[in-house]
């Protein structure tokens, strides 16, 4: 997992490597300064040597400037490396997701993909920056400071031989205990957010049923979880400060006593004792820092795993770059086709079907009968488990995938418009489309009347998801967008459900008359939308129950007759 992520540092590798080196330089200067100060005191002040005081003073100022330069340079390289790293990860994630097949997308939910690309990447960026800065800085500072204590105080360094293990063990236990409390608290946040969110979305239901108190109960429960866990974690965390103070004071007392003895016998000088007081602070704080970084990294661990999971998922469909690029005509053939979404699922079994180029085909059937799955195979949104789907006489897997999808245009059931203008959205179908092309497509989809009635016409703004258009208008825009591709096959998956029957039938009429060669496959819940098709396919439980014209089915299929009667007797007012 780490390798998957770290290989994304790429062109920022040099910055990632320089940063720790700069940190070493910064720390070295910082650790040097107290010893230089000791020299001033012992050799300069005590001996009354003014000249020496100034000389060393200048050296310290130089050291401070060096430390500053290293520090600021490190600040820059670390930011450069970590921001670049995050950008690379984001780009790679995005490309990978774009290359996913429908089957791959099904595996991850949309919201989880969004979290992975946003929050998780930010977490990883932060921990990476910490890794190349603090993770090097603190241990190095620790080691250097110990060396200097040994250099200045000799035997005094034994004090730390006792103090360090004590602090390390305490830090370990405190952080381990708090880690569980804090992760529990964060889980509490999830349910906290969920209750608020549900309450916001369902506020009318809550108020209509006067359930404010009950909701408050749920909210209290979630809030209490957060409070209890934070209290628990922070109470343990509260030991940290006093603990560090105790250790610091103990060290100071021990150092003072042993130092006084060493000075007394002439093994050490006063200035050196002072420097060791400073080193005590550096050693102990770098220990705490290291502990904190480890905790942060372990929190980010979950994010790393989730990102790596996406990056390591290989797109399951081969796009067949070198495949056939020309689709001869709009004929479709299903030859003993079976299909399922997973290993054990069987959604379609043994489908045989023959559609001639230019025909209009209707597909009806209950939810779950396999209508959408059937048409998905034509544009190769999924691959068949068995058998073969042929378009223009060739198996869909023999075509270059993009070429195939450009010829087989699908208007999805859950369709989406993107923020931008109407024309921008329509040009998804064909970036080079002229204004006349766009108008022609909108005429067929009967979208031009309402677009042209708007103030800005084709330049009208579309909100994210197309929320500023009604359901029927959105559907007509999506049909126009699909038509702009000038495909050989147009598939509409329940794409006129929100359009009134009159408009619906006009659209079908236009499709029939204006784009004659186009093979049209229409899924609908409304019989009226498919009644005049050349063939109507009745799907039932993954099988084709019957195929025929309206009249044929009406005369021989009892289910079809039932459906027809219910829909004409008590149909939709929207019809």
């Amino acid at each position: 997992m780490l390798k998957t992520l770290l290989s994304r540092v790429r062109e920022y590798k040099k910055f990632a490597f320089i940063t720790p080196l700069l940190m070493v330089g910064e720390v070295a200067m910082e650790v040097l300064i107290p010893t230089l100060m000791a020299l001033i005191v012992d050799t300069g002040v005590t001996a009354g040597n003014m000249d020496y005081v100034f000389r060393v003073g200048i050296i310290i100022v130089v050291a401070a400037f060096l430390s500053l330069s290293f520090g600021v340079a490190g600040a820059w390289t670390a930011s450069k490396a970590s921001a670049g790293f995050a950008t690379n990860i984001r780009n790679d994630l995005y490309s990978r997701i774009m290359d996913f097949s429908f089957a791959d997308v099904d595996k991850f939910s949309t919201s989880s993909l969004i979290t992975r690309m946003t929050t998780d990447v930010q977490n990883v960026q932060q921990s990476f920056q910490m890794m190349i800065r603090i993770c090097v800085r603190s241990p190095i500072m620790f080691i250097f400071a110990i060396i200097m204590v040994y250099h200045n105080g000799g035997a005094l360094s034994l004090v730390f031989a006792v103090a360090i293990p004590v602090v390390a063990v305490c830090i370990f236990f405190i952080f381990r205990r708090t880690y569980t409390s804090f992760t529990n608290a964060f889980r509490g946040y999830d349910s906290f957010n969920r209750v608020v969110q549900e309450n916001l979305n369902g506020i009318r239901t809550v108020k209509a049923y006067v359930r404010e108190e009950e909701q408050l109960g749920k909210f209290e429960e979630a809030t209490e979880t957060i409070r209890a866990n934070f209290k628990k974690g922070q109470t343990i965390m509260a030991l940290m400060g006093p603990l560090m103070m105790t250790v610091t004071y103990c060290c100071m007392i021990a150092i003072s006593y042993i130092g006084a003895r060493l000075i007394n016998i002439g093994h050490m000088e006063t200035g050196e004792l002072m420097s060791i007081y400073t080193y005590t602070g550096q050693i102990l704080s770098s220990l705490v820092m290291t502990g904190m970084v480890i905790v942060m990294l372990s929190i980010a661990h979950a994010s790393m795993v989730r990102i790596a999971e996406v990056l390591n998922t290989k797109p399951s469909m081969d796009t067949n770059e070198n495949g056939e690029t020309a689709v001869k005509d709009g004929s479709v053939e299903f030859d003993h086709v079976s299909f399922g979404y997973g290993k054990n699922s069987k959604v379609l079994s043994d489908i045989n079907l023959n559609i001639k180029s230019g025909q209009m085909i209707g597909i009806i059937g209950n939810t779950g009968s396999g209508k959408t799955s059937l048409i998905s195979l034509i544009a190769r949104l999924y691959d068949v488990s068995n058998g073969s789907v042929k378009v223009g006489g060739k198996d869909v897997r023999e075509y270059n995938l993009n070429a195939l999808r450009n010829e087989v245009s699908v208007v999805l059931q859950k369709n989406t418009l993107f923020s931008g203008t109407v024309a921008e959205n329509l040009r998804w179908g064909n970036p080079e489309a002229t204004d006349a092309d766009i108008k022609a497509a909108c005429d067929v989809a009967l979208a031009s009347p309402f677009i042209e009635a708007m103030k800005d016409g084709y330049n009208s703004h579309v909100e994210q998801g197309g929320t500023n258009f009604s359901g029927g208008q959105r559907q007509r825009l999506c049909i126009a967008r699909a038509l702009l591709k000038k495909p050989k096959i147009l598939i509409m998956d329940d794409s006129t459900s929100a359009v009134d029957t009159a408009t619906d039938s006009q659209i079908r009429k236009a499709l029939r008359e204006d784009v004659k060669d186009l093979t049209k496959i229409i899924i609908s819940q409304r019989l009226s939308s498919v009644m005049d098709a050349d063939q109507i396919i009745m799907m039932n439980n993954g099988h084709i129950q019957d195929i025929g014209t309206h009249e044929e089915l009406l005369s021989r299929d009892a289910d079809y007759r039932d459906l027809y009667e219910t829909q004409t007797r008590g149909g939709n007012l929207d019809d």
Partner: protein
Amino acid sequence: MIRARNAGGARAKDPKKAMKRVLSLVFGERKLKFVFIVVCIFISAFSIVYSSNFLGQFIDGYVTPIIGVENPDWAPVVRALVQFAAIVSVSVVFNYLLSRTMVSISQDTLYDIRIKMFRKLDSLPISYFDQNQHGTIMSRFSNDTDTLNQFISNSLVQLLQAIITLVMVFVTMIMNSWILTLVVVVFALLTMKASSSIAKRSGRQFASQQADLADVNGFIEEMMNGQRVIKVFCHEGQSKEDFGALNQKLRKSMTKGNTLANAMGPVTMNIGNIQYVALVVIGAVVVILSGGAAAGYTIGLLAAFLQLSRSFSNNVNQISQQMNMVLLALAGAERIFELLDEESETDDGYVMLVNAKIDENGNVTESAEKTGQWAWKHPHHDGSPVTYTPLRGDIVMKDVDFGYVQDKMVLHDISLYAKPGQKIAFVGSTGAGKTTITNLLNRFYDIQDGKIRFDGININKIKKDDLRHSLGMILQDTNLFTGTIKENIKFGKLDATDEEVIAAAKLANAHDFIMMMPDGYDTMLTNNGESLSQGQRQLLSIARAAIADPPVLVMDEATSSIDTHTEALVQSGMDKLMEGRTVFVIAHRLSTVRNSNAIMVLDHGRIIERGDHDDLIAQHGVYYKLYTGAVELD
């Protein structure tokens, strides 16, 4: 999920006022704890000064005198150290108590604030939710309480501690040497200047970084939701390119922002280092020139001063860093207070719904236990005796005008009546005012003019909760809550027995599919019932209304296309539910409309046609056009 966009304004409008209010929330009911905390802070500040000073005294008083002395007396040294140990251990204890007390204060305060916010939220009128985006409200609960949490549990004490310590350190320094104090003050000002200029720049950078982040996150959200369309249109390449450009922009602003933030540490630290040198050199010059102790300058003093100056500049840094945090938190606090200060839904109603016994003469008496019969208890202002009216479900609207905002009316002169058990259908195009009318019945909104009467009582006089209990609502979009199926049905009647739940589910035709679920009625639903189909969710919403058993029902029929089988189930479930109740229905199905006692055709907030199906067809008006499909409904 994407919080950056809702991060809100950075600065508080009136920080003083917000601060006062935050403090009163934190300490208002915990005055004793507050006193205790201040005491703790003083003790810990004292111990910092004391221990810094001790080092100097120790060097001057105990170390220097024994240099080169053979077999010195160690007893005074040990005594001094023991005394030091005793004093600092007291401060350690108080420090611990301080931290612990603050943990409970901050978490309790936060708990209180969150509960207050939620209680407030649920008391707000529906119009509030119309006017405010859910994301923005969410961010009050997440981002703003988070920063407030930071402020209360860290910044508050640290700030107090820093200020008190600063003062004590300053006084001690002056007492020791005013020349060296002057040096420290000069460097402190320098540090402040440097850090505030970095902070200012990084603040600006941070804002542009947040904006770029919002762009990237927004793009991700939109494209992830439209992934399938991207693939169908082979738009992958283009969208990768667009994303790459946004991403590069973010990288640049992030690098700049982080560089500044990272540079803060080295800059302030090295100003500190140079200050150190200045102190030592100036100190050394004075010590050497004055010949040492004569002027009171000793090595011990220098050592003490070095420690004091470090804690002085640390605290100055602390304050300047916390100030930023404080302003951020106060801005969040202001937004929280804004929510808390919103006007709650008012309820002046005094007519209550009570259990009743009705004898054969039609006399109504109040009953303490459940009778299955209900009545309106109506006390009168003029002192005449309380009257009881049986709950029947008779609705009258007379000359009702309504607008969501004062001077923009969306409904005009709406008059209609529904006798108990009658069904009234509303039809008309989107925006004609169908939903608005039904929202007035349960007082989601209050009317501007006219009267609505429920069983002859003006609904303004009825307690809102009781009014809503007597009205069932089936909304177009079913909202399910995380919990079991049973809990979701019980939403309509909290004390319902399992038998009642099953009976309601059977009436709604939901029983069969529920039994097919792995855990039956105990199947967990999450994320608004994502595991259920649209039709199944509608069946549950019918069951929920059935168990509440209200005399009046308001239904907004769903338009989403569901398959014919489920559609038939929903249809018959609705029909069973409607039996014997007064029903207002926003109709999309022909059968529903046909069976109605009256159909109201709405256009631009007015009733333009009314009558039953046959009347309206005969009129050849708007209804006729709708019916024949010549006009689009939604």
